[in-house]
């Protein structure tokens, strides 16, 4: 069956239902494995000691914060161009997940910053842009909740996600220009990762675990949203039925 056949909400929900337990199970397994590798097996950092281990929770969360917004914007673009309801459902379902990943990145970053930088918070470019990303997630969620008519909320949310996606690079650039203290990238570099293998592997396992977790949560939330929509239309149908 071609992939597009799953664009049918009914069929999608059925597929999602059968995939969810597998995804959720492997997410939990990978998370446990990644945490074990990172917290017990990986060597402590020669400078930061054991405090560096928070990296295995923090760095993939920050990656996810951006990745989920990217998915949300992509889903919104698809919804905008092809008007496909499932894409809207995916964008809406992604927002709270991304918001939580962003919060996780911020909180673990603060916990690490206190012993390492001597402050819970510094106004550094990366911290600031992640904080702003957090507020953009909040704005998106609030807009969804603020508009009562769902058909209108869908369209407003699409525009907001896309305008946000256009603006994020500009905000990122302006904040970078403003101040930089955070260490540079050490994994995604043109000349290969500068981080040692025994630390890279747990990091990558955690990254995969987060991605699988995102997929599992996304499918659950999308199914819930599809069910809610069906419920709404059934209710509307009952109201208008002649007695």
């Amino acid at each position, binding site marked *: 069956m071609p992939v597009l056949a799953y664009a049918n909400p009914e069929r999608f929900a059925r597929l999602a239902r059968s995939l969810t337990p597998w995804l959720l199970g492997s997410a939990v397994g990978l998370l446990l494995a990644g945490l074990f590798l990172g917290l017990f097996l990986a060597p402590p950092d020669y400078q930061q000691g054991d405090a560096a281990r928070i990296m295995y929770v923090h760095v993939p969360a920050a990656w996810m914060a951006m990745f989920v917004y990217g998915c949300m914007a992509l889903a919104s673009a698809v919804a905008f161009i092809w008007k496909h309801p499932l894409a809207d459902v995916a964008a809406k379902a992604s927002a709270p997940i991304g918001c939580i990943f962003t919060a996780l990145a911020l909180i673990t970053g603060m916990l690490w910053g206190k012993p390492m930088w001597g402050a819970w918070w510094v106004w550094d470019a990366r911290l600031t842009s992640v904080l*702003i990303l957090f*507020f*953009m997630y*909040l*704005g998106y969620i*609030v*807009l969804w909740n*603020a*508009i009562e*008519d769902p*058909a*209108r*909320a869908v*369209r*407003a949310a699409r*525009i*907001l996600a*896309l*305008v*946000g996606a*256009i*603006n994020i690079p*500009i*905000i990122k*650039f*302006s*904040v970078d*220009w*403003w101040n930089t203290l955070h260490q540079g990238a050490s994994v995604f570099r043109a000349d290969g990762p500068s981080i040692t293998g025994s630390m890279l592997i747990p990091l990558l396992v955690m990254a995969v675990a987060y991605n699988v977790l995102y997929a599992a949560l996304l499918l659950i939330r999308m199914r819930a949203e599809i069910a809610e929509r069906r419920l709404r239309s059934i209710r509307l149908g009952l109201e208008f039925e002649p007695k």
Partner: protein
Amino acid sequence: MRTFFALIRRDVTLGIRASGGAALSAAFFALIVVLAPLGLGPDMATLKSASPGLFWIAALLATLLGLERIVQPDVEDGTLDLLRLSPLPLEFVALAKIISHWLTSGLIITILAPALAPLLNLSLDAVPVLALSLLIGTPALSAIGAAAAALGASVQRGGMVLALLALPLNIPFLIFGSTAVAQAQTNTDPTQALTLLGACSLIAVVVGSIAAATSLRLNDD
């Protein structure tokens, strides 16, 4: 083009006469500038270093004020439907609304700011840069605000939602604008910050018009 200018004239007139219009933005802007020393303390050196940022934060907040007025009433009383029937593309309707909002908020703030500069002990050399940065940057605040207002037009009493949508997107202008003023105050060349401010501002006016027009189309069911 005649419709375009007529629309600007109408919105500016409404903005001046209606409550919550131009006078309110100006008064709000002045009030933030006056309140800042009461919170920060009267130390002149502190005020001097804080003043570029304070002026820009005041501008950001003051431009938020008139935003609900530029879209919401037109949606409610059906003016928007008539505008949509006119041959003027909706993008230009949005641009006219941005320009008229700017004329009744950003422009007034730009004129007012140099007069308030001594209150925050901004050095005299930085005053022209402050005015210039506001002149370049405030149209973008109106543009992003108009897009947010158009998005929030379906929300009852959406003022706070509007602020939450618009403020994060205004960050580049806050950064470039206040940096330019701060640089002028410390005798560094502010050209780089001003040109970046101008570039971002132009992008924002274009994206803002298109986004606002697209959001205005939401209101036909």
